[in-house]
């Protein structure tokens, strides 16, 4: 299967990525889908993220068995099972001052990546605006993104400048 993704960046970085055909892998404890190369499904989201001047339009080739969709019912079921398994196996430090939601999210996703080495792409939707007050029903608008494990799965890249996009 082929996935279309948009990666927002600066023009200098975009030229480097296209010439070397190599994306920089994001790897911090705050990455929502853990370590990998991030793409938005929507070009607008890629442009709006950090007000990027260009986006890199990319095609990602992946087998069905290598793709995990966290937005699907099955994907959420897997996440919840892994979350329960980890939470019941050890007494996790839940000190909210030291561990943010993002850090816990990243740690669970990193566990999934490491325990399932066959998975090469994970997709999920996350709120596009920060939370102003904690509530149970999260109705914030979401944007879908996916994380690619390795550069070799990215088959095509093309730079699109902000000005080239017609309304």
């Amino acid at each position, binding site marked *: 299967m082929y996935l279309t993704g948009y990666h927002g960046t600066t023009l200098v970085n975009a030229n480097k990525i296209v010439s070397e055909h190599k994306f920089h892998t994001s790897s911090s404890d705050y990455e929502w889908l853990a370590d990998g190369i991030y793409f938005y499904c929507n070009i607008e989201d890629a442009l709006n993220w950090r007000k990027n001047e260009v986006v890199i339009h990319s095609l990602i080739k992946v087998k069905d*068995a290598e793709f995990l969709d966290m937005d699907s019912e099955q994907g959420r079921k897997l996440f919840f099972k892994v979350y329960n398994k980890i939470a019941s*196996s050890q007494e996790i430090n839940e000190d909210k001052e030291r561990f943010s939601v993002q850090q816990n999210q990243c740690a*669970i996703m990193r566990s999934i990546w490491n325990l399932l080495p066959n998975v090469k792409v994970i997709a999920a939707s996350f709120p596009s605006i920060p939370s102003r007050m904690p509530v149970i029903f999260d109705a914030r608008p979401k944007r879908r993104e996916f994380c690619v494990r390795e550069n070799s799965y990215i088959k095509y890249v093309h730079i699109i400048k902000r000005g080239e996009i017609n309304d």
Partner: protein
Amino acid sequence: MIDIDEAFSIIEEKIDKMSPEERVLFLKKMGFEFNNSPRRRGVRIGRVKIRRGRRGRVSPVVKSSKRPKTKRGYAYSKIDDKNRKTKATNT
């Protein structure tokens, strides 16, 4: 998409196969941190059981015999003493 039941059974098997030490190391590598301090685990130091959630108030170095106890046998700190006095004054 991958088969979720199969994926979870692989994950479960891998986690269960790990020894407790290996599991802690693995999860720490993933970015988790654990409550391993004696106070958080509620272990006994001397004769006094340090209650969970009383971190920072009770010093485990003070010998249990020298420490005043509440009716339930738990240690209490100077902060508790202060609160008790305040409460008594108010009433």
